[in-house]
């Protein structure tokens, strides 16, 4: 087990900069999740840590060691690929034992480690099968098994669950989390999936265009996003945004209606801002921002209402079951402490 730290890591593919000056410290035993839109450089960052890509600048440390020029095999890491990358010509047992055999570990130890891992993952009855004789979920488990047999310093996961169906994904998510709690190995996990990120991570790293936007615990990112990008990226359905201009202690929206701001907002009179309100924090009231109901979607536990208000398309999530029809005119409001204020020019949070 080891910490991982990145110091202004830089990576280019030809003329295109894919990672710009990435700084990140991951503590020993932490489970860090990398999220970001497609193409933002998550896989590239992970592969750079693995040594599969050579970085163009900066430093990568695993534990005490600077590993910029260390071959992947000597970095003492294990990686689970999105495609699983199981060796098609080896059965499950040999797939899992491959790395130990390469290291010339004693046969007894290989057998013990493989059987311990396969017991943990419920693979005992599959040990003699080839990868092509396994289901998607079973392959995923073998890929996990191959990683934990190593007992590496760091686990790297690149969207390991994205090829599974929703139900299996939920199960595996819990299992990986449980596995991490028992092994306590540092893990870096790339995903597209909001829920995976929120539920599994000790800390989430949000990336965009090769730049880290924010690093923090899941709820911290949810409650206090550092900028508009993170606010819009984390949370589903996504946060509602309104362009507004500061008017005393209030914000004037595009349709002229006023919204009370949180006391913490550091704004100046006339400043152009963006107001963010999460769907579950919007409520129907008698006065407030007027809006017209467009769609009503009952989800069972909650009801999702789409409205047009203040020249925006707005989503509201109501726990009660409002009786509404498209075309109904309603008024919306939110408590000041639930309102996020961002500077419109810089995109940064100002409360």
């Amino acid at each position: 087990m080891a910490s991982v730290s990145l110091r202004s890591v830089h990576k280019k593919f030809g003329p295109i900069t894919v990672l710009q000056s990435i700084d990140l410290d991951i503590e020993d035993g932490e489970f860090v999740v990398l999220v970001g839109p497609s193409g933002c450089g998550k896989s590239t960052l992970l592969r750079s840590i693995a040594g599969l890509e050579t970085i163009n600048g900066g430093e990568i440390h695993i534990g005490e060691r600077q590993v910029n020029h260390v071959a992947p095999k000597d970095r003492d890491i294990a990686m689970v690929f999105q495609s699983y990358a199981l060796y098609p010509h080896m059965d499950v047992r040999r797939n899992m034992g491959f790395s130990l055999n390469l290291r010339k570990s004693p046969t007894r130890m290989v057998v013990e480690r493989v059987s311990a891992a396969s017991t943990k993952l419920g693979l005992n009855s599959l040990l003699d099968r080839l990868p092509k004789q396994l289901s998607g979920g079973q392959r995923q488990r073998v890929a996990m098994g191959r990683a934990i047999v190593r007992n590496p310093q760091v686990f790297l996961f690149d969207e390991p669950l994205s090829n599974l169906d929703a139900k299996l994904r939920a199960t595996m998510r819990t299992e990986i989390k449980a596995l991490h709690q028992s092994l306590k190995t540092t893990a870096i996990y790339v995903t597209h999936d909001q829920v995976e990120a929120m539920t599994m991570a000790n800390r989430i790293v949000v990336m965009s265009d090769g730049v880290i936007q924010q690093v923090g615990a899941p709820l911290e990112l949810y409650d206090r996003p550092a900028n508009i990008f993170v606010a819009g990226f984390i949370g589903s359905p996504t946060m509602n945004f309104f362009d507004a201009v500061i008017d005393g202690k209030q914000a004037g929206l595009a349709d002229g209606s006023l919204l009370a701001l949180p006391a913490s907002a550091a704004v100046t009179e006339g400043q152009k801002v963006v107001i963010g309100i999460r769907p579950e924090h919007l409520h129907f009231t008698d006065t407030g921002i007027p809006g017209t109901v467009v769609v009503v979607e009952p989800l069972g536990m909650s009801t999702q209402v789409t409205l047009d208000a203040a020249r925006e398309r707005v989503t509201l999530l109501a726990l009660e079951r409002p009786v509404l029809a498209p075309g109904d005119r309603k008024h919306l409001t939110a408590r000041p402490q639930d309102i996020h204020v961002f500077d419109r020019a810089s995109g940064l949070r100002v409360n």
Partner: protein
Amino acid sequence: MPGQSRFQRIAGTIGVYGAIACYVVFALLPIYWTIKISVTPQDLLYSEGIRLWPSRMTLANYASVLEATDFPRYFLNSIIVSVATAVIVTAVASFAGYALSRFRFRGKALVSLVLLLTQTFPLVMVIPPIYRIMGQLGLTDNLYGLIIIYTAFNIAFATFLMQSFLDGVPKDLEEAAMIDGCTRFEALRRVILPLTLPGMGATVAFVFTAAWSELLFGLMLINSESQKTFSVGLLTFVGKFAVDWGQMMAASVLALIPVCLFFLFLQRYLVTGLTAGAVKG
């Protein structure tokens, strides 16, 4: 398919089977005829020249080819040359194909283009210079010279074949192996090569067949009886002696056996291999 009348369907089926039957006859006729003459006794050769099968059969032609001629020697020479060429080419082409499949580097497009253009070299153009060079190196009139030339001539196509097979092996696998503790070379040996064995089989078969068939270089470089390959032996046999049809056909059938065996055995891989190679170019 729905929407077609019964008559159309039946006519279509008959047409398909008819066309296939015609081609099978066309494809097999020469081979069949060679076999037929090889088992026809000498005295019936002309009188039953156009019968489909002779009224009597004999294996005497085979016996005399094996006992009274140099063909067993030619046969052995051809085996040596073809096997050696096939093995060397496949090994060299595997590495070259690996470089083209797995690395991005400056000059790669140029290398591919040069390889492709070597396919357009008229063989006849390089024959005189090669003859001189080989002569100076003492490689005329022996099998090594043939092996070297055949190897060089088959490398380009074999490299394209191997490249396309290697392209079919996901890059993830070798990266996983490198993380698991392999050097790049070990990953190649333990993971990539085992997965491309069918491709290598196809390449071996292709090169073996090509080397076994080659005639002009053999004719030009080889003079002494003891070094002749099968093709050269057979052709000089045609020229030198009053033609003994039966013996020649028997020798031809013998020459067909190894390639056909190879071919039938590897046919499945050959189809994918050739296609991949051709499609990629």
